[in-house]
């Protein structure tokens, strides 16, 4: 998806390949979020209900291959999300990566034949609208870290 860049006076306009890396990270964050959660829930379904205060019962759940695979993919999600936040605004990343919700609902509908109610279709439509609107803004509008969050001696 091509990003529509609106340069403001003090806004760093991304160059083409920089913008592409940000977009690759956006896609990686969405895909790893979706599949990590799908594999994790498949695994936890195999493991069965855990109602326990003992951490050992949760550790045992990791022995299930689906659970372990899901957690490994979610680790990649966490790392790519942090890499993305180093390059893009939080107020850009949040709505754009919400497309994961849409992907989960559509995958459930087309692969697992989950029923999608009218209200859920409207939800999918609203989120898609939000993703498109956010995609039309520049990925990053700040030049450096927020000054007041950096210790004085590092400025």
């Amino acid at each position, binding site marked *: 998806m091509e990003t529509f860049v609106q340069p*403001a006076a003090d*806004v760093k306009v991304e160059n083409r390949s920089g913008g592409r*890396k940000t977009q*690759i*990270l956006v896609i990686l964050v969405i895909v790893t979020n979706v599949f990590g959660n799908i594999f994790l829930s498949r695994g936890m379904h195999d493991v069965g209900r855990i*109602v326990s205060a003992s951490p050992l019962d949760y550790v045992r759940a990791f022995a299930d291959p689906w659970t372990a695979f899901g957690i490994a993919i979610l680790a990649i999600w966490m*790392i790519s999300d*942090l*890499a993305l*936040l*180093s*390059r893009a*605004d*939080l*107020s*850009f*990343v*949040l*709505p754009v990566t*919400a497309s994961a*919700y849409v992907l989960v*609902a559509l995958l459930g509908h087309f692969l697992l034949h989950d029923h999608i*109610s009218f*209200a*859920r279709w*409207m*939800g*999918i*439509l*609203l*989120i*898609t*609208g*939000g*993703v498109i*609107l*956010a995609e*039309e*803004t520049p990925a990053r*509008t*700040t030049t*450096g*870290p*927020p000054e007041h*969050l*950096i210790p004085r001696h590092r400025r």
Partner: protein
Amino acid sequence: MKWLLVAIIAVCNTFGDVLNTAGMKRQGEVEDLRPWTMLQMIKRILRNPLVLAGFGALAVSFFALLSLLSITTVSFAVPATAVSYLLETLLAKYILGEDVRWRRWAAATLVAFGVVLLSF
């Protein structure tokens, strides 16, 4: 108790994301996506107090979510997620200094309402 947990989830989730963003911006842009660069990034994160505090806040939010799920259904956690979108956009503007104009406000609002509708 339920609503207290919802509030804890929303607030900790918001602060977790804001701290992570501030920490990653302070650490500097990840220039390329090679595994070696990612490894270096992870090593620096372990010495980044903002991101570590962000992880702490997200962990509190996660355990509050587990407690909430143990006393009620998943749909009860949805308002917390929806509110986080708006709260995080607000803090992104006023704490992180991001240029949030009508498109981003509209995007966050649409996603927040969409998330609520998806839970039906």
